[in-house]
């Protein structure tokens, strides 16, 4: 959370000769970061980022306190002075008092309730107060309303002022709301409340949405004669739930959600009364109401020096640790091997264990004052995950001429429609950002086809790939999140996509088999695509994409793709390469030509030959052609066979014998006609 602080205001409480820039640097190095410094006339405005665990620093006093602790611990001269009027005796200034009847139904809702009634003169605030509010982006209204905002910026404690005469029956009951109760807040918005919000009701109506915004019906106006000054703390969780339910948050709510310092409430009320007396001619006309059943206590935290020094990597002087903690407001007790510390009231919620103390000491000591060394421990014996292999695979694909893209894993309902996976099986977001980002994709093909479409006017030959997870719902538990490799090519050539797939398997050390997809597939064209298997495990599909998907992306030409499940592939053992003795004897190489039906797969032919002959060590397809002279639906295939033996050169007789066996089996089993 960010806060703007004029340095002149800071200097009311932080007495130091240092320049604004120097103060900013010290703060940034050891405390809240000063992100920006704006020059405003003679003054500077600090724009400070305060982390959510430090609501105590979300104010002028909070920053002054931090700066003082940092400066003094770094040997810089600095003094912290308190604002005037924080410890007034809040007794009535008149004998004709009024009584405010305040009731808290549950102190857990409001751990401290303070209120006091004042007679006031409403007028414009003095220039100093107006200017400071404007510098912090708050609009001045009148002296009483301005005091409430000024106090919030100065002390970090939000406060509210009611018009006492608008509180019917001079009665305030603090309770939880019922569902659908209504209140019109100060910004004239009518709000319908959820069950359980913290509200205040007078004898007739709701007058306050506690911790968030006051009611319009009880606000301070020009005609207000008597005001209730009101400083509280609320249950942070209830405030947060309410702001979320109403989708409505204020500066006050932001502070209450983080929790406020209960011990600071009365001093804040006192200061507000002091200011009211000064600029609104205020007189106290009621007794002080302070309902504080359970006093806020800080616990004692123990930090062993051995642990502190271990964390810092250096040995720090125990006296220094005392000095640092004391400058931060801690009460400390030094023992031989450890320090016991009690956090100041404004840090009660933030300081819990010894590591919290380590942070306080280390940051004020200065992280820049610590050395920089490499870790000294043992290197763990831990295997890299598959991601390491993916890096190598990506490089292989790059050198194979493929270009990597990275597309969004979240897709639109429309794109999901192109994948063939139903919404029921897809992983869906309950709070999508827009319609574009609603489902987790079950395939990469649609996303990559879209990339091809977007780039097709720039290039004709596109070959892209992506390696990413896909997501599929399971009956129970997390969705299946397997890693996939998908390649999409704009040239729509089956053999090219098969070729790159074969290269990929070479890189992966696997051998795959391919069988034709004959049935209708949402993504791939029947008879123009194949399933890919390693052994019995199906690992993917490849081929030409269905026109349903290419039409959707308005692509004119055929698109080919391959999608492989890398998670499955990496689970399989790879082929190991071992040495095979190189035969000293030369092989016999012969060609066989035969006419087959065009439907006979080459895979079947080579399988047949391998089955029948042990002498054939290599089969190469030299030539395939179709010609009406061969006959209808026929093709001619020429195969180059290598006959090889380990211990001798095959004799002409052996080769003849094998050739006869092969020809016979091709003619019998594959109805081939061997050409002589």
């Amino acid at each position, binding site marked *: 959370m960010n806060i703007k602080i004029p340095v002149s205001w800071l200097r009311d409480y932080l007495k130091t000769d240092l320049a604004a820039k120097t103060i900013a640097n010290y703060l940034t190095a050891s405390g809240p970061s000063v992100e920006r410094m704006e020059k405003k006339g003679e003054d500077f405005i600090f724009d400070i980022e305060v982390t959510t665990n430090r609501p105590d620093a979300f104010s002028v006093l909070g920053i002054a306190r931090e700066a003082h602790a940092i400066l003094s611990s770094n040997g810089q001269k600095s003094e912290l002075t308190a604002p005037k009027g924080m410890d007034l005796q809040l007794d009535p200034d008149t004998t004709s008092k009024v009584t405010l009847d305040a009731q808290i139904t549950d102190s857990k809702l409001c751990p401290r309730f303070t209120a006091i009634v004042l007679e006031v003169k409403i007028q414009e605030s003095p220039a100093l107060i107006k200017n400071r509010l404007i510098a912090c982006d708050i609009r001045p209204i009148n002296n009483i309303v301005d005091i409430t905002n000024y106090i919030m910026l100065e002390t970090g404690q939000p406060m509210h002022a009611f018009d006492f005469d608008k509180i019917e029956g001079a009665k305030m009951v603090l309770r939880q709301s019922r569902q659908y109760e209504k209140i019109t807040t100060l910004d004239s918005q009518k709000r319908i409340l959820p069950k359980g919000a913290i509200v205040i009701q007078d004898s007739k109506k709701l007058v306050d949405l506690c911790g968030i915004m006051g009611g319009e019906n009880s606000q301070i106006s020009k005609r207000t004669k008597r005001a209730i000054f009101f400083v509280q703390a609320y249950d942070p969780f209830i405030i*947060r739930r309410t702001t979320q339910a109403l989708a409505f948050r204020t500066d006050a709510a932001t502070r209450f959600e983080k929790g406020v310092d209960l011990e600071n409430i009365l001093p804040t009320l006192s200061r507000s009364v002091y200011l009211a007396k000064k600029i609104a001619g205020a007189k106290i006309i009621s007794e002080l109401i302070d309902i504080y059943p359970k006093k806020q206590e800080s616990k004692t935290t123990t930090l062993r020096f051995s642990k502190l020094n271990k964390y810092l990597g*250096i040995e720090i002087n125990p006296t220094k640790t005392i000095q640092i903690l004391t400058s931060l407001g801690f009460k400390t007790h030094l023992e031989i091997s450890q320090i016991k510390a009690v956090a100041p009231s404004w840090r009660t919620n933030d300081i819990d264990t010894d590591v919290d103390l380590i942070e306080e000491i280390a940051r004020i000591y200065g992280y820049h004052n610590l050395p920089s060394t490499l870790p000294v421990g043992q290197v763990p014996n831990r295997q890299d*995950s598959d991601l390491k292999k993916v890096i190598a695979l990506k490089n292989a694909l790059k050198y194979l001429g493929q270009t990597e893209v990275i597309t969004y894993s979240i897709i639109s309902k429309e794109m999901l429609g192109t994948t063939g996976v139903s919404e029921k099986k897809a992983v869906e977001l309950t709070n999508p950002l827009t319609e574009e980002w609603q489902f987790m994709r079950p395939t990469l093909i649609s996303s990559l086809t879209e990339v091809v479409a977007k780039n097709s006017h720039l290039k004709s030959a596109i070959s892209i790939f992506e390696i990413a997870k896909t997501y599929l719902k399971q009956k129970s538990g997390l969705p299946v999140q397997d890693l996939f490799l998908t390649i999409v090519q704009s040239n729509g050539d089956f053999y090219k996509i098969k070729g790159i797939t074969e290269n990929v398997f070479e890189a992966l050390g696997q051998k795959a088999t391919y069988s034709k997809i004959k049935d209708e597939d949402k993504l791939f064209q029947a008879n123009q695509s194949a399933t890919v298997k390693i052994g019995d495990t199906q690992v993917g599909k490849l081929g030409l994409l269905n026109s349903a998907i290419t039409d959707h992306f308005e692509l004119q030409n055929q698109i080919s793709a391959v999608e492989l499940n890398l998670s499955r592939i990496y689970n399989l053992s790879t082929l190991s390469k071992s040495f095979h003795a190189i035969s000293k004897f030369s092989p016999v190489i012969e060609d066989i030509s035969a006419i087959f039906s065009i439907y006979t797969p080459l895979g079947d032919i080579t399988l047949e030959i391998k089955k029948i002959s042990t002498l054939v060590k290599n089969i190469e397809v030299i030539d395939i052609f179709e010609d009406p002279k061969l006959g209808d639906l026929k093709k001619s295939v020429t195969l180059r066979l290598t006959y090889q033996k380990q211990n001798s050169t095959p004799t002409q007789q052996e080769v003849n014998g094998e050739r006869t066996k092969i020809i016979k089996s091709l003619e019998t089993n594959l109805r081939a006609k061997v050409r002589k």
Partner: protein
Amino acid sequence: MEEKIKKIITQAQEKLSQAKDQKSFSDLYIEFFGKSSPLNNLTKEISKLAQEKRPKAGQAINKAKQQLEKLYEEKKQSIKKNLNSAKIIDVTASGTKRQLGHLHLVSQAIDQITEIFAKLGFSLQSYPEVDFDYYAFESLNMPAEHPARDDWETFFINAEIDPKFGKQVLTPHTSNGQVREMEIVKKPPIRMINISRCYRRQIDVSHTPMFHQFEGLLVDENVSIDQLKGTFDFFTTNFFGPKRVTRLRPHHFRFTEPSFEVDVLCDICEGKGCRICKGGWLELGGAGMVHPNVLKSGHIDPDKYAGFAFGWGIERTISMKTKLPDIRMFYQNDLRFLEQF
């Protein structure tokens, strides 16, 4: 005899001048010097001559042989020369090369980051992107309803709520891998890098709903802030260049204590301060000493062990080396962009 020799030489010269390529030229060798070459046949005829004519004939034949060898050698050299200067080569014209592809900037960064941390013994791990609330938040010291969760603007998944692990979310950071890694390794030392896609509900010129983060976790017996500093300096000087050191600023995360924001020295002004950086430094990411409650979630004894962790956005880290006007360009996948790298 002399005339026959002269004829052989003349014929040979003719044949040599006609030989245009290496093959026909090599064939001539056998023709001139082989068993059935004219010169060799002549040598056989010496025995048919009268005794006193033989030595002179023999000398003449030898002389002819030498002359032939010389002519042959000359021709050989000139063919070699011609072979070499046969084509006219333009050395500035493109060669015949293979078309290389390109890796995405993010993958290139992942490669470099992995390599740098591997030198320090960090292994590369991978964790689910759709994960349980328990691993993304609760085990990291962020109980249910804690406002700290608001900082991440999380996407939620439409799925059954697990009684033990809670809702399913798209992880907004790679820190969901911390307790998972502790559960797998069980006993320190732990040194891991987790690089993954992360998701947050925001989009503008410097945010995309999906981005990449890399997480580091080190847990051991003697871990200190100076080791954290040293590790970061090692990374930034190797990734960005020498002199590009880091600094730590106090910050807050629920899962680390102390917590830091890590800055790297600005390369443009070298720390003096300029328009681009914040006072000489550029924000890199968050880090801290692992909170004892997180160690406890991973069943590691916080009294015996300590650790540090850090999580940095990869796109942001890349942008510090390669200036890009709009982070959304990373995922527009315009080939004209991708092919620049």
